[in-house]
C-alpha cells in the first residue's frame, strides 16, 4: 500500500514543477538526433541511482506556458519487457518504479518509419501506459526514397495519438513536433489503441493485475505489467525482486500459467503474437508500396558482405582508421606539444624557480599536456566510428566478423571496442555499451586494455630505437618494424585467448540471442557525425582527463618530495663554483648538465625513487632496476610518461631532442657492481612485453569501475593483467638469459 501512496504524492508534489518529456524508441531510430534538435547542444549527463545507466537530459522551451520542459533521452529499447540494464531503466521510468524519478508527463515516441511494424510493437506497449504520447515518424525521407507511402493521418486516427513526420538529422518536422508536444500537454489525446487478448488470457491478466494493483497508481499501467509478468519466464520485473510481496505475486503467476497451459495456450508468446497480428492489420491500412526498385542497400550489400570483397573493404577501412590515428593525428599532436613547450618556457621565464613553478610546469602543465595530446587521435577515431555508424556500415562489419569473434566467445559487436582500444582503452570500454549480453560485454571490457594503445607506442619506439638492431629479416623486413608489429599482434592474440578463457570459466553462458538490425545504408549526415564525435570526445576528456590529470599531480608530488636540503645546498654550491670558473657556451652546457644531474639525484631521493627501490626486488627477475621501477610507477598516469621519467632519472633532461639522448644514455648505462651494461636488448624486450600486458592505466581502471558499478571487476582486471605481465616478462628475460641472449 505504501508504494501507491508514495506514487500519488510524487505526482501531486511535481504538479507545479517543470514538465518532464521522455524520448522513447527502438535503438537506431534516430532518437538522439531528435533529442538534439529539441534541446540544442547543452545537455546534462548523470547516472540513474544505483545503476550504471546514463541519464541524459536537456531543456526545451515551451512557448505557450512560457516555461521550460525537461527532456530526457531514455536508452533505446525494443520492448517494455527489459533484457538489459538500459532497458530496465526505460521500463522502470515509464511505469513509475525508477528510484529518484517520477513517470514522465509526456512521451515522445520515436519510430523508424522504415521499420514501422517492428517499431509499433514498442509503441503499442507504450500507448497502454496511459501517459500522453506524441508519435514522431522519423526518417520519413527514407520512406519515400524506398518507394513506400505511409498514411500518417490514418495511423494517428487508429492509434489515437498525434503523429508528426520528422527527419531528425536534417531537422525537418521539428517545429511541427514541438507544436504537437504543446498541444498534447494542453489537451491530451483520447481514444488510445488498446490490444485485447483472447478472453481466457484476459481473465488471467486481470487476476494478476488485481494482485499487483496496489503498487501502481494507474489501472492501465498495472494491466500492462500484468501482461509482461505473465509471459516473462525469466521473472525480470522489479516487483518480483525488489520487495517482499513477491511470494504472493509468484503464486498468482504460477496459477495463471498452469491454467493457460491446461487450455493449450502458450503463455510465453501470446503478447508478441497478438500484438503483431494487430500491427499487421494496422499497417495493411496505412502502408502502401509504390515502386519496387532494387534499393541502394541491396546493391551495396552485395559488395560489402561479399565473401572476398567484404573482407577487402573491411581491412581497407581499418587501415584507413589506423592511418588516421597514427599518421594524420601526428601533425595536430605536434602542434599541441609545441604549444605546451611554449607555455612551459613562458611560465619558467616569468616565475622564480621553486615549488610553485615546478607544480605548474611539471605537474599541471604536464598533466594537461598528457591528456590533450591524445585528443587528435581520439577525435579521428570517434569521427570514423561515427561515420561507420551513421552510414550503416558498422552493422555490416559486425555481420562479417561475428563468426570470427564467436570463436573466442565474443560477438561481432566486440570488434568496435577492441578496435578503439588500439587508440585508447577508455573509449573502447565506453563503446561496449552497445553489447547487450552482460557476459559478452564483460569479457570484451576485460581484454580491451590488452590491445596496444597509442600511449604504449612512445615506449615501444624508444626501446626499439635504442636496442633493436637495424638489421633485415629475410632480406627485406626491418627487425625494428617487425618487433613493433609483434608487440601489437601479441596484445591482440593474448587478448583473444584471454577472452576465450574467461567465457569458458568465469563468464559462461549467454542470456540474450545475438541479433541485430542491418539498417539501410545512407549518406552520413555531417551534423550527426560531428555532434557524435564532439560528444564522445567530451566524454573521453571528462572520464579519462580528470583521472590522468589528478594522477599527474600526485606523481609530480611523489617525484618532487621530500626535498633534500643537503642535496639542494650541494647543487647550489656547485653551481656557484661553475659560474665562477667558466663562461660562455661552455658554462651554459656545464650548467645544463649540472641541472640534469641535480634533477636525477632529487628524483632518486624522492618518494617515487623510494618506491622504485622498494619494488626493485619484485622486478629484478624481469631484468628491471629501480630506475625502471620509478618509470613503472610514474606510468600509472599514462603509459608514455615512463619515457620522460627515464629521461629525468638518467640525467638527460626533458628537452625536445631528448629521445636520441635518452636512447644513448640507456645504452651507455653501466652497472656499478659488474661493470656490464644495465640495459640490454633482452631487458628492453622484457620491458616491452611488460608494457604489452600490464594494466598501468588508472583512467582505464576508473572507467571499468564506473561501467561495472563495483570494484570487483576492475580489481580482477588489475590482478590478471599484472600476473600476465610479470609472468610473460619473467619467461622472456629468464628464458632469454638461459638461451644465452643478452
Amino acid at each position, binding site marked *: 500500500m505504501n508504494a501507491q501512496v508514495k506514487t500519488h504524492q510524487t505526482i501531486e508534489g511535481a504538479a507545479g514543477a517543470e514538465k518532464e518529456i521522455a524520448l522513447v524508441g527502438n535503438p537506431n531510430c534516430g532518437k538522439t538526433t531528435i533529442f538534439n534538435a529539441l534541446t540544442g547542444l547543452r545537455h546534462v549527463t548523470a547516472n540513474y541511482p544505483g545503476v550504471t545507466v546514463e541519464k541524459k537530459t536537456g531543456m526545451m522551451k515551451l512557448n505557450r506556458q512560457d516555461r521550460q520542459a525537461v527532456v530526457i533521452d531514455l536508452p533505446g529499447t525494443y520492448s517494455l*519487457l527489459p533484457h538489459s540494464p538500459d532497458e530496465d531503466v526505460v521500463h522502470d521510468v515509464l511505469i513509475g518504479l525508477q528510484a529518484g524519478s517520477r513517470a514522465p508527463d509526456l512521451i515522445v515516441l520515436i519510430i523508424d518509419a522504415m521499420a514501422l*511494424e*517492428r517499431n509499433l510493437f514498442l509503441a503499442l506497449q507504450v500507448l497502454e501506459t496511459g501517459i500522453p504520447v506524441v508519435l514522431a515518424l522519423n526518417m520519413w525521407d527514407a520512406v519515400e526514397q524506398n518507394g513506400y507511402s505511409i498514411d500518417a493521418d490514418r495511423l494517428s486516427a487508429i492509434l489515437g495519438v498525434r503523429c508528426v513526420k520528422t527527419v531528425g538529422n536534417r531537422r525537418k518536422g521539428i517545429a511541427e513536433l514541438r507544436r504537437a508536444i504543446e498541444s498534447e500537454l494542453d489537451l491530451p489525446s483520447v481514444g488510445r489503441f488498446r490490444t485485447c487478448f483472447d478472453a481466457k488470457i484476459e481473465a488471467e491478466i486481470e487476476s494478476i493485475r488485481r494482485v499487483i494493483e496496489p503498487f501502481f497508481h494507474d489501472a492501465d499501467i498495472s494491466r500492462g505489467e500484468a501482461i509482461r509478468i505473465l509471459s516473462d519466464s525469466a521473472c525480470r520485473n522489479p516487483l518480483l525482486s525488489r520487495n517482499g510481496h513477491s511470494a504472493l505475486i509468484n503464486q498468482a503467476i504460477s496459477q495463471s500459467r498452469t491454467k493457460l497451459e491446461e487450455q493449450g495456450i502458450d503463455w510465453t508468446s501470446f503478447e508478441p503474437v497478438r500484438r503483431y497480428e494487430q500491427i499487421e492489420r494496422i499497417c495493411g491500412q496505412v502502408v502502401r508500396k509504390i515502386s519496387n526498385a532494387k534499393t541502394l542497400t541491396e546493391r551495396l550489400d552485395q559488395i560489402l558482405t561479399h565473401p572476398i570483397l567484404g573482407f577487402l573493404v573491411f581491412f581497407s577501412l581499418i587501415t584507413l582508421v589506423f592511418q588516421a590515428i597514427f599518421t594524420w593525428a601526428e601533425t595536430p599532436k605536434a602542434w599541441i606539444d609545441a604549444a605546451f613547450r611554449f607555455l612551459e618556457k613562458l611560465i619558467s621565464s616569468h616565475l622564480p624557480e621553486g615549488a610553485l613553478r615546478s607544480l605548474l610546469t611539471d605537474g599541471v602543465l604536464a598533466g594537461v599536456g598528457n591528456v590533450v595530446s591524445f585528443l587528435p587521435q581520439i577525435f579521428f577515431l570517434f569521427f570514423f566510428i561515427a561515420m561507420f555508424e551513421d552510414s550503416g556500415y558498422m552493422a555490416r562489419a559486425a555481420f562479417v566478423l561475428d563468426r570470427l569473434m564467436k570463436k573466442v566467445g565474443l560477438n561481432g559487436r566486440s570488434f568496435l571496442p577492441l578496435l578503439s582500444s588500439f587508440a585508447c582503452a577508455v573509449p573502447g570500454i565506453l563503446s561496449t555499451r552497445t553489447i547487450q549480453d552482460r557476459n559478452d560485454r564483460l569479457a570484451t571490457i576485460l581484454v580491451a586494455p590488452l590491445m596496444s594503445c597509442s600511449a604504449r607506442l612512445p615506449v615501444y619506439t624508444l626501446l626499439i630505437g635504442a636496442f633493436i638492431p637495424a638489421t633485415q629479416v629475410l632480406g627485406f623486413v626491418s627487425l625494428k618494424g617487425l618487433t613493433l608489429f609483434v608487440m601489437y599482434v601479441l596484445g591482440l592474440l593474448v587478448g583473444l585467448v584471454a577472452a576465450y578463457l574467461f567465457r569458458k570459466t568465469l563468464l559462461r553462458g549467454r542470456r540474450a540471442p545475438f*541479433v541485430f538490425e542491418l539498417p539501410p545504408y545512407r549518406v552520413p549526415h555531417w551534423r550527426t557525425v560531428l555532434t557524435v564525435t564532439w560528444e564522445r570526445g567530451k566524454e573521453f576528456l571528462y572520464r579519462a582527463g580528470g583521472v590522468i590529470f589528478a594522477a599527474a599531480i600526485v606523481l609530480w608530488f611523489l617525484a618532487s618530495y621530500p626535498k633534500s636540503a643537503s642535496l639542494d645546498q650541494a647543487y647550489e654550491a656547485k653551481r656557484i663554483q661553475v659560474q665562477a670558473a667558466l663562461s660562455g657556451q661552455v658554462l651554459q652546457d656545464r650548467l645544463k648538465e649540472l641541472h640534469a644531474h641535480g634533477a636525477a639525484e632529487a628524483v632518486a631521493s624522492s618518494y617515487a625513487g623510494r618506491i622504485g627501490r622498494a619494488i626493485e626486488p619484485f622486478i629484478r627477475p624481469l631484468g628491471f632496476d629501480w630506475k625502471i621501477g620509478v618509470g613503472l610507477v610514474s606510468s600509472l598516469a599514462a603509459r608514455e610518461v615512463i619515457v620522460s621519467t627515464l629521461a629525468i632519472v638518467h640525467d638527460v633532461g626533458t628537452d625536445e631532442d631528448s629521445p636520441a639522448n635518452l636512447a644513448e644514455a640507456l645504452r651507455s648505462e653501466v652497472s656499478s657492481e659488474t661493470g656490464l651494461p644495465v640495459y640490454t636488448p633482452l631487458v628492453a624486450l622484457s620491458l616491452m612485453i611488460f608494457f604489452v600486458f600490464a594494466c598501468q592505466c588508472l583512467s582505464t581502471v576508473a572507467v571499468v569501475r564506473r561501467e561495472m558499478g563495483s570494484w570487483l571487476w576492475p580489481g580482477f582486471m588489475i590482478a590478471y593483467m599484472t600476473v600476465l605481465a610479470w609472468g610473460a616478462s619473467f619467461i622472456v628475460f629468464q628464458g632469454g638469459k638461459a638461451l644465452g641472449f643478452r
Partner: protein
Amino acid sequence: MKSESASEELCLDRLRPSELAVIVRYLDRQDIHHRLKELGMVPGTKIRMMRYAPLGDPMELELRGYRLSIRREDAEKIWVRKIKISPL
C-alpha cells in the same frame, strides 16, 4: 498475380539465399527466444533469407520491412515452412 503454394518444412538455418518461408513454431520454449518474438519473428511471419555472412554465420533475414542478423545457433531452433512463389 502471384500464388503461394505450401512446401516442405525445415529449420530456418537450412534456408538458402533468397528463399522465402513462414515461421511455423519454435522448437523449444526458451526465454532467450522472447526477444526474437518481440522483434517480430512470431509464428506466421513471412521471412526472406537474404544471405549468409562471408564465413557462413550469422545469416541476414528480411522480415516486416527490415533486415535482421541472426546466428545459426538461434535459427536452428526455429521451424519454418518454405513458400514457393510461382508467377501465374
